[in-house]
């Protein structure tokens, strides 16, 4: 993406100093963690790279309060291991797109929060941003700002944690993040109904998610993609239960009965369950695709409609997560295919992101939907409220912003 010199301060004061220097000089910065998602969204033209990758380490972990703080450059792998040692997990089930992007650097907590990346558990337990209790960041003038805190409930002042989560480093450089974590369930089990068409498949997912059994994930893979996932074969409507062992056993039986109208229900063993959901989380069935990758988010019932439209438009390869509402799409990296994705998402009242494409396409098209004029004007003013000289990741989300 950029061969610019990389500045990786070892502490927050160093980050603030680097931003103040860039602010004084009016020089744009490429803001990143370890750069594992550098090929996402629009390319940033910057003279220097500011990395939070050297800000590492857990600064607070109180398992009995479900609270964890870590510096932004701490790797997701290190965090996952640290909480696993206490029988807990990062609730958002952060996807790892290393295979998808062909990146070899370790994704960081700051990157996951900056991109608001949420895995299959999103549909039941909320997005990455829902678990951010507090953060520290450096704004575009080099000031350190905090929002939220280290407690589970907090409505003090404007919720800048939400605004900065998913802002892709365009408003501030995240330096430290506090998360709510949850216990690892005693047992996980996936239930599969095979051979359903997409509409029936999503209906089965809706029935499961609308049951009282606490389904924690629901995805649909058409046969061509399911066949790429070890443990699956043929079109698969998949749901997941996570709880105490005896609860999972009981709920599996109840769901089997509830879903009987859709077909026979198979319960996968725990090892297969973990592997299958990791594949869904990281979009592994699309890793071999060479073109562009999009993520479209719509009402769950509209997922199959978007998929069918794009299959017809350009032979899209696709699968559905989040109960049918998250449509993963692979297709040719062309403006025509991109326009078809945007049109289908728009027609379904949803949102979209061009996740992966050659730089030339990402630089040429809008990678996320345009905002209505009044909101776009507010967005420009909000950007200026954090980054008055526009030096933080300019153009990453939108051209000229």
């Amino acid at each position, binding site marked *: 993406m950029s061969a610019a010199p990389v500045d990786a301060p070892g502490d927050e004061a160093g980050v603030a100093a680097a931003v103040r220097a860039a602010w004084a000089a009016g020089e744009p910065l490429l803001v990143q963690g370890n750069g594992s998602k550098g090929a996402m969204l629009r390319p940033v033209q910057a003279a220097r790279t500011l990395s939070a990758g050297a800000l590492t380490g857990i600064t607070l972990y*109180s398992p*009995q*309060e479900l*609270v964890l703080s870590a510096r932004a450059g701490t790797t997701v792998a290190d965090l996952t291991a640290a909480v696993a040692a206490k029988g807990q997990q990062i609730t958002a089930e952060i996807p790892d797109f290393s295979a998808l992007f062909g990146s070899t650097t370790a994704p960081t907590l700051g990157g996951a929060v900056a991109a608001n990346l949420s895995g299959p558990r*999103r*549909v039941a337990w*909320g*997005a990455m*941003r*829902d678990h951010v209790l507090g953060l520290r960041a450096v704004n575009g003038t080099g000031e350190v*700002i*905090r929002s939220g805190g*280290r*407690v*589970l*409930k*907090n*409505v*003090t*002042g*404007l*919720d*800048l944690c*939400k*605004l900065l*989560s*998913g*802002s892709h480093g365009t408003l501030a450089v995240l330096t430290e993040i506090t998360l709510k974590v*949850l216990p690892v369930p*005693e047992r996980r089990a996936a239930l599969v109904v095979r051979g359903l068409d997409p509409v029936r498949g999503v*209906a089965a997912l*809706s029935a499961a998610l*609308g*049951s*009282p059994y606490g389904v924690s994930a629901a995805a649909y893979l058409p046969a061509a993609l399911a066949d790429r996932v070890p443990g699956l074969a043929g079109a698969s409507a998949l749901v997941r239960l996570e709880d*105490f062992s*005896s*609860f999972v056993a*009981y709920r599996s039986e109840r769901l089997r009965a509830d879903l009987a109208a859709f077909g026979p229900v198979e319960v996968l063993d725990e090892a297969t369950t973990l592997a299958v959901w990791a594949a869904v989380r990281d979009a592994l069935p699309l890793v071999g695709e060479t073109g562009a990758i999009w993520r479209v*988010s*719509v*009402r*769950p*019932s509209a997922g199959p409609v978007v998929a069918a439209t794009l299959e017809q438009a350009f032979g899209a390869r696709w699968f559905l997560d*989040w*109960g049918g*509402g998250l449509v993963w799409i692979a297709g040719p990296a062309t403006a025509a295919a991109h326009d078809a994705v945007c049109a289908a998402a728009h027609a379904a009242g*949803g*949102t*979209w992101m061009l996740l992966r494409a050659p730089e030339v396409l990402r630089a040429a098209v809008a990678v*996320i*939907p345009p*905002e209505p004029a*009044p*909101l776009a004007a*507010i*967005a420009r003013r909000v950007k200026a*409220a*954090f980054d008055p000289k526009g030096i933080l990741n300019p153009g990453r*989300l939108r051209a000229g912003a």
Partner: protein
Amino acid sequence: MIAQLPPRQDVLARRDAIVAGLRRLLAPDAVIAEPDLLKPYETDGMSCHRQVPLAVVLPATTAEVAAVMAFLHREGVCVVARGAGTSLSGGALPMQDAVVIGVMRMNRILEIDYADRLAVVQAGVTNLGITQAMEGRGFFYAPDPSSQLACMIGGNVAMNSGGAHCLRYGVTTNNLLGLKLVTVEGEVVDIGGGHLDAAGYDWLGLLTGSEGQLAIVTEVTVRILRAAEGARAMLAAFRANDVAGDCVAAIIASGIIPVALEFMDRPAIHACEAFAHAGYPLDAEAMLIIEVEGSAAEQDDLLGRIGEICRRHDPISLRISASAAESAAIWKGRKGAFGAVGRISPDYLCMDGVIPTSRLAEVLRRIGAMSAEYGLQVANIFHAGDGNLHPLIMFDANEPDSFDRAERFGADILRLCVEMGGCLTGEHGVGVEKRDLMVVQFTAAELDQQRRVKSAFDPGWLLNPSKVFPLQVPPA
């Protein structure tokens, strides 16, 4: 009365013309300007502050809200949005030179979609009204503030309301999909919709809990959830606050997340028992109400595990409910806590701080010392799972300076919460109540950062003035 920005004399002087302009936009009965009819709007749930507004409007549609906002923006008139007026922090307190926009006539449920698990409702629908509209289908809207019978979803969005069950289900911000907004200029904007996680900046998250500072909410798309098969409660009484606190930590550390985990201290137990006769143990220093969900067998299993943990903490008594009726009895005292305290004290202030749950015993000791120092009784109710502390400070407004002492006591408690690593408010909001304490939690640079975000939405600072931010001239 708390300090306010001085009313704009030019606006007060144009009052009749402004009211006439509003009457041209709305049905005759939707504009209130007569002093006796304005009286009911002079306060909210924080009734120690009163201020009659310039006028009140009760629009019936988003288009009417937009027309009113555009007009008031042209006229340079401030706006206070109001739902049911149940705010406990003075979030809906009117200002003398402001028009109150009440959304109570926008009370229709526009859509319920069980397959996609969402409901679209107007801002004036009550919190409980959403769940009631799904009666018989087993679905519910999760956040359950104790005012849920009266409070409106528009106000819930503005204050990011919580409730007793947010340890499991989250607060308002975690249960929204979309908003229809009217900007200060009167533009209508849709944010989010039926889908999860719009790309770009998280406007939904920023607007939620923004206390009417950024825009007016007219429609809300909420997530609806299928309820668990059932729920059951248990009651555990302990000899000391720190023992109860340790028990809470042990329950969480065991991997169980109860749907509710409520703590009451000795004064709260006594007040509630005298009021509700719920059978609470009067010899206990601290009491927990713990609720779990699931099938009957799952409830037995969870309550059994939790009971084991409680037994390791030398409980005075343990009472595991055997039925829905017994669970209701256990909850009865807790749910009547405000009324109970109102019965033993002529007046009380309900505070709303948050602390790290591990500091509970220490915080209660310090509050006890302050209670003696101020000469005012206090009863503590605590959402123990999430650290949200509600001290109820009792006073008698007929006693000279009693209210003033109660306010200073309350402010000291909130300072203590921040000192312990917590925050000023967990669910009631800043409003006017905690406005001047914001400097305790935030640096000047942090407050200015928030003010600049406010300015990006509301450059003229017309929305809900004199709230949230300590008074000063807005930054350029």
